[in-house]
């Protein structure tokens, strides 16, 4: 029933001499030949039923919209059902309109198939040639090809006008020179006390065996000091196998490493006190704490930098020296 002759099909929008709305397009199925499921065939009673169904949808929508208002004002906004009820009311209200409109289209409006001709997706050779001729004529009139002085001075002016963009963009952030220095500078200096998040200095005995604490230089917990977070870990005697030359960097089993992952810069401080694995939750780089935090799994390529530890004369932990290498992820100027 849905077939029709396409070969003889004229353009749907082809008739510009239309006087009545009906004949501007040609329905593929003449009204007399409705498909069996079309609305005309099911009779006036079914038609009424469809109408009532659609109207019910719109009615439900209105009721839900009013319910939304009631919930919005009557319920305290701290109520745990507040947001879910608002959502349900809004959704029902929207579904009512949507389902109603679609049922309207499917059940009430005639189910006709229309055919429309495509226009070709290219211009005729004559049109293209004419356009090219017009362009050539215009270009000729400007003399752009002939007048070299004009051409070069114009192109030069366009080029120099682009130059001011460079300093404007380069001043979006801090001056690029010295970036690398900033990234290479250790946020810890020799003698900086290891302090907790609340600013309390840490001394021997504050950590149990298998303990870990996030520490900051001299109470500087500012978020802008994003490379500073360091972890202080207390290992049991003999567990640490220091790298040659770093034997003096531990104090009584305590070791300190940068918490910032050398891969993408997340805080890698998921410490397993028995296996001594230090895991980064972002990309799962795993470092072995007892062996200078060398990477043993995942994408990280370098060990976590180690902070040399010492005690000051009051018995508090201090940085024995600044970090010996740039902290955090790699960058072009790093080394």
């Amino acid at each position, binding site marked *: 029933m849905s077939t029709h002759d396409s070969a003889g099909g004229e353009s749907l929008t082809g008739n510009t001499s239309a006087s009545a709305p009906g004949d501007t397009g040609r329905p593929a199925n003449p009204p007399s030949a409705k*498909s069996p*499921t*079309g*609305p005309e065939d099911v009779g006036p009673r079914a038609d009424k039923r469809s109408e009532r169904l659609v109207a019910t949808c719109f009615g439900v929508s209105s009721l839900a919209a009013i319910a939304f208002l009631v919930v919005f004002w009557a319920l305290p906004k*701290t109520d*745990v059902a*507040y*947001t*879910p009820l608002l*959502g349900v009311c809004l959704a029902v209200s929207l579904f009512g309109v949507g389902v109603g409109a*679609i049922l309207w289209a*499917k*059940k009430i409006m005639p*189910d006709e198939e229309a055919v429309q001709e495509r226009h070709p997706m290219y211009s005729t050779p004559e049109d293209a040639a004419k356009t090219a001729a017009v362009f050539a004529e215009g270009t000729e009139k400007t003399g752009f090809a002939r007048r070299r002085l004009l051409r070069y001075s114009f192109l030069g002016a366009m080029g120099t006008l682009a130059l001011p963009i460079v300093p404007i963009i380069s001043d979006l952030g801090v001056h690029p020179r010295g970036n690398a220095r900033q990234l290479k500078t250790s946020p810890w200096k020799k003698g900086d006390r290891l302090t907790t*998040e609340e600013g309390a200095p840490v001394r021997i*005995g*504050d*950590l*149990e*065996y*298998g*303990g*870990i*604490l*996030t520490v900051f230089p001299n109470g500087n917990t500012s978020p802008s000091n994003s490379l500073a977070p360091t972890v202080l870990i207390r290992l049991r005697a003999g567990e640490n196998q220091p790298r040659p030359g770093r034997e003096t960097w531990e104090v009584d089993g305590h070791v300190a490493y940068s918490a910032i992952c050398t891969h993408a810069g997340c*805080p890698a*401080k*998921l*410490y*397993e*006190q*028995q*296996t001594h*694995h230090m*895991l980064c*939750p972002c990309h799962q780089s*795993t470092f072995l704490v007892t062996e200078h935090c060398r990477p043993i*799994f995942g994408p990280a390529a370098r060990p976590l930098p180690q902070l040399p530890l010492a005690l000051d004369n009051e018995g508090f932990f201090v940085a024995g020296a600044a970090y010996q290498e740039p902290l955090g992820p790699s960058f072009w100027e790093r080394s």
Partner: protein
Amino acid sequence: MTSTAAGFAAAGRRRRKLASYAVLLTALVVLGVTYAVLAPRGHAASTAEESFAVQKGRELFQTSCATCHGINAQGTQEAPSLIGVGAAAVDFQVSSGRMPLARPGPQADRKEAKYDRAQIDQMAAYVASLAPGPQIPQVDLADGDLQLGGNLFRTNCASCHNFAGSGGALTYGKYAPRLTPATPVQVAEAIRTGPENMPVFGPSTFDDHQVNSIVKYVDYVTRSKNPGGLALGKFGPVPEGLVIAVVGIPALLAMTLWIGARA
């Protein structure tokens, strides 16, 4: 007839009431005795009662723990020494069902506790009698500071246990467990004793107020109602993406099928 029935019913109610009083009284007595037996050593419990608990605890230990932990809790190839781990470690491991171990694996799983309160306390008393160690912490949620606890949790706990205590994976099959089933005392015990691979946070790392605060925050974040509807497991964006892929897009595709279907 009806009056008799009513009389019987009334009598029954009275009896039930009496019975419930009796149960309550018994429970209180038992509780009091248990408390007296188990309360941290010192004033209330006499040394005789304590040594009784230690005695019972040793018996329990010999039957169910000694095969792995050694006849004198000195540790073996399979299991660590329990000398000096304290009552807190025993209470945490046994009350959360992790010990006795069901089967060897990367990590002990939480399960139904195998021993009742009294037995756990006897075992704890025995292990505590071997060498000094962390006692079962006294958790006071009222003393906790929610804001302080939240910040401490995010700095020290969330990296493994996730922002809402939903847990997370660790290396090679180990994991930081979900905190929802843990009681406040168990959370505090875990902080103090560092079970298995969890780091230890002793009294000079976090004082009791800080521990109370963390426990209070854990209690809040795992039990508070979610104002935005279903919490989707509190795992962050992953379940949210799944909801769009499994609910949102299929629902809308079904609707396009309905709209596109010929009437």
